């Protein structure tokens, strides 16, 4: 079997970026040769399994370590009584992106499923049975679970270091002048990370050097964190993370068991591997918390929003402060004279929430879009017409202009593709056979952050190149789209480019999160290539033997592995010839990707999502039968991969609207559905006719490449569109997600 599939007819015209290339790692993945962290089997590896708490609040009073250690194959059991020390307490937040975590620091139980011991054994089976044999006993307190079971508090910050509230304009004055007042209360459930690849780590020491294989979305940051908590020189740590089987925010943050595995590997002087079971992901690796959101809209007689309030109560943990910033989703979507958003927290005995694909935006957009739809109907407006009436020409939260905003075009293209113009205003007016049919829409919006990234590019004597940056490919295809950008920075065909990534000893590409990875790491890679070409051009232009000699003011362009005079295409020279004459084997450039200074424009990706649902009127079952979105996200580096990202987000929206929900037993705090049989996400048969269109958008402000992001955009808008379609079919306005059949009969 050939290593690379030769796909005929895959001709590329022009540059690399903008081409619908398939994933460069696709063949490795579909043939099982891509090595994920848990696939590593170093010589002499031991297996670790955490024992987890069966209570949600209290203390562990006894662990039968003797029974566990007597089990054949068990090597050692770590508990708070004998675990090696960390250099820094795992309850210390060493940087803004650190979560308090459990590494056996004491006998306290803060949530059900919390690791309370680590069993290391010669086999996975022995470690697992050892963890059962510990048979913990507890001093248990009554757990505080859910929105109504916990203790309210006012957070100082929300999400990661953001202010919890915002007020723009005079709400009370705006309300006085408005004609109609609307109030909507919506609940969203706890959702837990279920990436296909569970979290895993393999750690091994050679002397004072530590090698770690673990899927991670930000390995530069992870290296710093491992180094700080373990008290190891960061230069002595190598993290490999070549493939992630999904991250979605849960693999951006370290959790205690990873630190314990590294400590135990040192203690036992053997490599150790740990892979979480599915149920063990329910707690220590973050989740999207339950929210109760209240929206208040005041609208004038012409259908303009005068006042918009969005208040969120979100469940947090008892020991850390991550608050789902759902209300912020109302900051920048619709025009309003006055805006007020607030957040409050509920302390509950659960693991700490964290980022989960479109954190805040997905949850808040779901509620906002339902509230907007409710007002539109009450005022007699078509939902799209109402949204256009309240189209934000400037950002309501900051007053700034948008860097670019092709939302109108998104609405128009998706609406046309969908056939929206035929939609009757009244709910319950469309049928298909026995079934009720409804059409709904929602606006998608997601910010365009940039983080910090660095990259190297090296041109080799044969005119090929290697680029290096520690980017994370979570399955989204980063290694393909980033390589496309890098190749264009170097002016070579992508087939001449070696792309090195996924290792912490490479220049730090920052976090693959916030839908900012392509923009950030891509800018660094492009700049590294451009820096290399600048040096190469300098060599050529100063070399009398070069056909480019003296082109100074005209300048040169790099294309297809040659430099061309801008004013005379017939005068060009191949990279390898320039290097050879200069006597160079290698030419190396560096680049950075970051946003300089405070942004002077509001920067968002946008979209319009239109959903059709069929509802069985007797049984309440909902089927999404059509889902069409059009999205504007700046320059699309790879249309094929961007479409997949957008579709993935929209499908996540189907799950959010109709299926996804982690259920606690409120008496014990334990989950009743912590597996893929019980925690439902869509299957193929739930995904209907679905399409994601992309709308052309040039953005001269967002970054030099004009790249926004598509990773999270598709979730926003979709949830509301489906809920609004359900209402249009049934006349029943969903009050909570997911929408169960029982609520529709």
């Amino acid at each position, binding site marked *: 079997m050939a290593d690379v599939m030769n796909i005929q007819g895959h001709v590329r015209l022009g540059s690399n970026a903008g081409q619908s290339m398939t994933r460069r790692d696709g063949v490795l993945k579909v043939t099982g040769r891509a090595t994920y962290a848990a696939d590593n089997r170093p010589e002499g590896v031991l297996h670790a399994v955490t024992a987890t708490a*069966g209570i949600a609040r209290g203390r562990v009073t006894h662990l039968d370590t003797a029974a566990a250690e007597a089990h*054949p194959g068990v090597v050692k059991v770590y508990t708070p009584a004998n675990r090696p020390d960390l250099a820094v307490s795992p309850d210390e937040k060493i940087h803004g992106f650190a979560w308090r975590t459990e590494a056996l620091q004491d006998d306290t139980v803060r949530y059900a499923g919390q690791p309370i011991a680590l069993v290391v054994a010669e086999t996975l*089976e022995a470690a*697992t*049975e050892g963890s*059962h044999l510990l048979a913990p006993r507890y001093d248990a307190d009554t757990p505080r679970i859910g929105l109504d079971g916990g203790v309210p508090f006012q957070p100082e910050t929300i999400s990661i270091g953001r202010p919890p509230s915002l007020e723009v304009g005079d709400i009370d004055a705006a309300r006085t002048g408005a004609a109609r007042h609307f109030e909507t209360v919506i609940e969203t459930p706890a959702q837990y990370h279920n990436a296909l690849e569970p979290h895993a780590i393999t750690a091994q020491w050679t002397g004072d050097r530590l090698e770690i294989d673990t899927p991670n979305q930000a390995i530069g940051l992870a290296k710093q964190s491992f180094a700080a908590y373990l008290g190891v020189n960061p230069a002595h740590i190598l993290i490999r993370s070549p493939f992630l089987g999904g991250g979605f925010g849960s693999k951006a943050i370290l959790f205690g068991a990873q630190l314990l595995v590294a400590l135990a590997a040192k203690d036992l002087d053997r490599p150790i591997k740990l892979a979480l079971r599915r*149920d063990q992901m329910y707690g220590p690796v973050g989740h999207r918390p339950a929210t109760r959101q209240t929206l208040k809209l005041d609208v004038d007689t012409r259908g303009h929003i005068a006042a918009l309030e969005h208040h969120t109560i979100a469940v947090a943990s008892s020991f850390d402060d991550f608050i789902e910033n759902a209300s912020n989703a109302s900051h920048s979507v619709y025009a309003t004279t006055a805006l007020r958003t607030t957040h409050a927290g509920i302390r509950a005995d659960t693991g700490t929430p964290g980022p989960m694909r479109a954190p805040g935006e997905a949850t808040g957009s779901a509620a906002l879009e339902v509230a907007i739809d409710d007002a539109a109907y009450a005022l007699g407006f078509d939902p799209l017409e109402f949204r256009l009436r309240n189209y934000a020409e400037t950002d309501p939260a900051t007053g700034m202009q948008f860097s670019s905003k092709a939302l109108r075009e998104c609405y128009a293209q998706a609406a046309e593709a969908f056939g929206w113009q035929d939609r009757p205003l009244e709910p319950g007016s469309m049928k*298909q*056979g*026995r*079934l009720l049919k409804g059409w709904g829409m929602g606006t998608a919006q997601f910010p365009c952050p940039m983080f910090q990234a660095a990259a190297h590019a090296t041109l080799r004597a044969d005119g090929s190149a290697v680029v290096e940056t520690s980017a994370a490919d979570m399955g989204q295809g980063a290694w393909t789209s980033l390589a496309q950008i890098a190749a264009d920075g170097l002016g070579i065909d992508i087939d001449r480019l070696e792309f090195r990534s996924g290792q912490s000893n490479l220049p730090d590409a920052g976090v693959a999160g916030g839908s900012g990875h392509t923009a950030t790491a891509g800018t660094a890679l492009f700049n590294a290539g451009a820096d290399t070409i600048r040096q190469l051009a300098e060599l050529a232009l100063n070399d009398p033997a070069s056909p480019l000699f003296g082109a100074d003011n005209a300048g040169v362009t790099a294309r297809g592995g040659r430099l061309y005079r801008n004013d005379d295409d017939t005068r060009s020279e191949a990279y390898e010839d320039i290097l050879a004459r200069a006597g160079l084997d290698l030419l190396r450039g560096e680049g950075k990707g970051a946003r300089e200074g405070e942004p002077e424009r509001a920067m968002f990706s946008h979209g319009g999502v239109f959903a059709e649902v*069929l509802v*069985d009127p*007797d*049984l*309440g*079952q*909902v*089927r999404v*039968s059509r889902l069409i979105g059009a999205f504007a996200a700046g320059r699309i580096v790879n249309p094929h991969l961007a479409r997949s990202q957008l579709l993935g987000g929209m499908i996540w929206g189907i799950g959010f609207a*109709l*299926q996804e929900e982690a*259920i606690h*037993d409120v*008496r*014990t705090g*334990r989950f*009743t*559905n912590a597996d893929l*049989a*019980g925690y*439902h996400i*869509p*299957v*193929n*048969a*739930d995904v*209907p*006719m679905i399409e994601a269109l992309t709308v052309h958008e040039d953005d001269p402000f967002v970054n030099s490449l004009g790249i926004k992001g598509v990773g999270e955009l598709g979730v926003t808008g979709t949830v509301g569109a489906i809920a609004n379609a359900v209402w249009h079919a049934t006349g029943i306005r969903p009050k909570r997600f*997911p929408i*169960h*059949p*029982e609520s529709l*009969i």
Partner: protein
Amino acid sequence: MNLFEYTRAETLDAAMSAATEDGAILAGGTNLLDLMKIGVVNPTRLIDITRLPLHDIEEHDGGLRIGAMVRNADLARHPVILSRFPAVAEALLSGASAQLRNAASTGGNIMQQTRCSYFQDPLSPCNRREPGSGCAAIGGETRNHAVLGWTEACIATHPSDLCVALAAYDAVVEITGPDGLREVPMESFHPLPDANGTGPAPLQSGEIITHIRLPDSGGMARNARYVKLRERTSFAFAIVSAAAALEIQDGRIVQARLALGGVAARPWRARTAEKALADQSPTEEAFARAADLALEGAAPSGDNRAKITLARRIAIRALTRAAAGTPDRLPALPASVFEGDCNG
């Protein structure tokens, strides 16, 4: 997982003598191995019966005799199942996933355990798992729990789709044990709970299910359906389901069969409803009256009152579809509520 001894039985006698208290029969393993991994069952011996000669489907007096080891996927595509017992095919293909159906056996489907989350959580009291310990499901999350035949001792439901259709067709479970052969009707194979516990074990020590017998479906062959309500179109257990079969002659129902799933600790055969349908016209009104009778005595076991309404309505849907006739080809989404009304 605890340490256990694994043996592959070469003969039925060997399997029977091994299938005592601390041993467990391993067929497809799709439920047993999961339960072992989460510590719900801890057998010290596994007796693998996959090599026993129980893989055949034989025609038998106009019906079928199905070996306990016949895989779900094979059974669903058997020509006689498709032509004369189509509700069995639909039930099978609406269950689990293609991968699981390739592994799961007919006997194992019957012997699978409830998916009550409290049964699956060894830390919760559960009379089914640990007699006398209580029932943690009561007062807990009860969306998947019983509305018929439950007691304070247990409110679990049996999760099988196949068993619902088998019960409707009067299937018989053939059991071989130390005392010889015995037969138990499918509809009463799974015990209902009593005031004190979950009832007697369906199999005694040393007993093994060898076959399932389906009697001749007679005039009901082309008027039989299975319908399943669930939020996810595949790989999800029924919220409620129903199997219905009708023999209709000259516009009158000669005989009717109706069984409900997801409502009780066993597939719930609705015999009163069936009797009431005899000699009636197959009308929506007649089906509605029958559905009322089927749900007679239903009561919520927690926050699940809506299931009574849903079960009633799915019974009507199954009967209505059965009356309309079995389609020549199985629908693309077997047992789906949406069949025929929407694409895909």
